[in-house]
């Protein structure tokens, strides 16, 4: 995946998260810790994962997300599955 595609994927993830958790998109940045930026707990993070899988038609084992804290990092994991 090239840089443009990765940036687009990250932006789509941020849009999805902002809509799901009712946060202004402008208040999020690609390198935010999305747990803190979205103010979500582990159950809500699972819900985000489900919506990501639906939106991008991928299956993401959640252990691959351990240690992933930013939207950029999230995009890297998803890109491997597209």
């Amino acid at each position: 995946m090239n840089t443009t595609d990765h940036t687009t994927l990250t932006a789509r993830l941020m849009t999805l998260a902002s809509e799901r958790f009712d946060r202004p998109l402008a208040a999020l940045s690609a390198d935010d810790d999305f747990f803190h930026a979205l103010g979500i707990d582990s159950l809500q993070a699972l819900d985000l994962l489900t919506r990501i899988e639906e939106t991008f038609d991928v299956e993401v084992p959640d252990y691959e997300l351990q240690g992933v804290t930013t939207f950029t990092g999230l995009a890297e994991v998803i890109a491997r599955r597209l």
Partner: protein
Amino acid sequence: MEEPRNPGVDRGLTSDGESPPASTAGGTTTVGTAGAFRGEALSWELAGGVLEVTLHRAPANEIGTTTLAELEGLVAALYAGAERGTVRAMILHSAVAGGFCAGADLRELYAGITARRAAGDAEAAIEAEVRGFIDRIHATFDALDQAPVTTVAAVHGVVFGGGFELALCCDLVVADKSARFAFPELRLGLVPGFGGIPRLRRDVGNAVIRDLLLTGRTLSATRAHELGLVSQLVARGEALNVARHVAAQACRFDADVTRAAKRFIKPLPAGELAREKDLFCALFTSPVVSEALRRFTESHDARPYLP
């Protein structure tokens, strides 16, 4: 669309004047007097032949001693109602936003063990207590599994560990698209102990089970439906409504035929269940489990400890 559920609560559990078996539940025992029950962890009511059971213990319906006692009361009411012909189907669902059930109450389990050890109790006594709890869980879950009526789990959100195992006791699983299924037990140094693996082996292939068990990963409802683990996949928030239609359909069939069909198609894997109990109890004494439980229960991070 017509709702299959009758608006009023059927008093069928007690309408014939008999006294159904007393609930062993920790909450107020109301089965014998009101045809409905409201406990600390779950409640039920009967309408149109359908016993609708609601799990409502925040934060995520963790199964500890209170829930187990109330589930034992449910089994007594279910079998008594089926025997009298007043209960023709059962729905099990959760009123908790986070999901159906997150599994065993690890905090209660860890607190109990820690207190017993601090009091100087012998490890053998602690192991015997764990074995006693697991024996009660298995007896209750086996009874739900073999219930003489059609049973439907309506699930959403987390369906983890013991919660997954509880859902697998039911004949049919109706899942909304938010549901995620997992066996996270290996992350705690254990295997699932409430009978989930032997029950799931009836439904899906061993490769699927190995993937779930050996990685501890979660599975979406969509994927679970593709694999045959979920009977019906429905929109978010619609699992209970759909389950009511399923239960209403089940009520149209002859009760004896339904019972015979279940006996034919859904045998209890008794041998594997017994071996699972032994394995769980053997693993439970490991220091790995104590350390994993300590780290899990003491974590206050939004991202709880899970290896």
